[in-house]
């Protein structure tokens, strides 16, 4: 528990952490607002009659970049080498003196990342849906009980993606590679989506499976995956990665 408090305190003292929070909140909200404005114009012109079923959810899929940054910096900052004048030290050595059990250290860190991402995801979901409601007014999609599992899916997706970033960064010990891979793969046409053109097995890659939790209308998808199955597939990927990361982390020199 004290290790968890320590990890939360370390995380919140980073400037990049606050940048990540702002990114995670602003990106989906701003895109959703922009998209709502253009949808509203189309509705007023009579081109469209109703908003798409994935309105808001697809925007939140981009906002996951905030969770990615949190997952990456939580680890990469431990390995950031200070300049030679200030001793050339790394935080990880201090951290492991304070919490000698590596497994407990990693567990506390992962929990902190997951907690923070969950809070961020919930806040971003509320902000995004509110933005759509404000812009679209009475045209806004109904938020009934069927929205609850989808919103829960958003939170799971963000938490799992943050843990994915976390696991990769534990393995690489540097932030740039996981950051590049994951941000490129959050792009409008993701690399994994391209891979689904090659083989339908790519639908079971972590992000493609994970978005099934909240996206209902995936463009020309050839494989149907139920939301729960999608979530489980992504969880399995993340669990496998975290186990590998934990084994590597416990066995190697810091």
């Amino acid at each position, binding site marked *: 528990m004290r290790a968890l408090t320590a990890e939360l305190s370390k995380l919140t003292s980073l400037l990049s952490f606050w940048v990540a929070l702002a990114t995670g909140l602003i*990106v989906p909200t701003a895109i959703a607002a922009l998209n709502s404005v253009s949808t509203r114009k189309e509705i007023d012109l009579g081109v469209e009659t109703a908003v798409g079923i994935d309105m808001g959810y697809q925007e939140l899929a*981009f906002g996951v970049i905030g969770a990615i940054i949190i997952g990456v910096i939580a680890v990469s900052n431990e390995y950031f080498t200070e300049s030679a*004048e200030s001793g050339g030290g790394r935080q990880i050595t201090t951290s492991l003196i304070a919490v000698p059990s590596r497994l407990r250290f990693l567990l506390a860190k992962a929990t902190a990342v997951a907690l923070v991402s969950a809070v961020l995801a919930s806040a971003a979901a509320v902000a995004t849906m509110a933005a759509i409601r404000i812009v679209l007014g009475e045209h806004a999609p109904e938020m009934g009980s069927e929205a609850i599992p989808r919103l829960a899916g958003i939170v799971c997706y963000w938490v799992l993606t943050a843990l994915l970033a976390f696991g990769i960064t534990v393995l690489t010990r540097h932030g740039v590679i996981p*950051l590049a891979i994951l941000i*490129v793969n*959050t792009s*409008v*046409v993701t690399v994994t989506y*391209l891979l689904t053109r090659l083989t339908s097995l790519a639908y079971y890659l972590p992000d493609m499976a994970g978005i099934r939790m909240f996206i209902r209308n995936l463009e020309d998808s050839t494989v149907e995956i139920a939301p729960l199955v999608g979530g489980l597939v992504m969880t399995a990927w993340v669990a496998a990665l975290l186990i590998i990361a934990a084994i590597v982390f416990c066995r190697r020199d810091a």
Partner: protein
Amino acid sequence: MSAEVARSRSREFVQALAAELSKLWSLPAVWLTLGGSLIVNLILAAAFISAGLQGLTGTPNVLDIGLASISYIQAGFIILGIVASCSEYTGGQIRTTLTAIPRRSLQLVAAHLALTIVVIPAAIITAASGVLFAAIALGDASASMELGSTVRMLAGATGYLGLTTLISASCGVLLRRTLPAAIALLGYYFIAGPLLREQTTQARYLPDTAGFSMWFPQPEDASALPPAQGAFVLVAWTLAAFAISLVVYRSRDA
């Protein structure tokens, strides 16, 4: 007297350029980034080629398919630019650099020129590798390609990658730390840029969209700039980024 001053100035510049080149040459991250980009480019090209062979995109065009991966592989070049600038700031190399070359404008110009010298051949190899791969793999199945447009597109892609690297290097000088710079630039090029492109036609003057017109054929998109104008806009962005970084670099503490 003045001739002597001019000679010593040019000599000073040549020495600074040699120093910057030697620093880039000895940076493992440069080679890892470039090699990694090339390998990933070939993998992505294979994906695009196999999608093209399945007839998903009409008659496969060697140039379109071979260059399609550039929009992802630019991530490698962006990171190259950032690493080249920010490596000065990890561990205080910048103080040694400025002791050796006290004139900051000269140092920054030499650094950018050295980066250009390294990046142009790398960009040519990367762009040509995709096209060559596509040409071999598609063989007779492809539409015929003429030499003129091939050279033009390859030059466009090379110029785009080179200028994007230089913009990244300038941003790296501004931000001084690798991770924040990577977050900002990758976030712009892969998330904000594509979304803005869909939202507004004014986005065609932004560095990424303007640069796209240099190598990405958009015949159906009336709002796209012609290649020459796109190149002009991108060069203007590069010079502006360089000018801002130069002003900041000259006026702040190292």
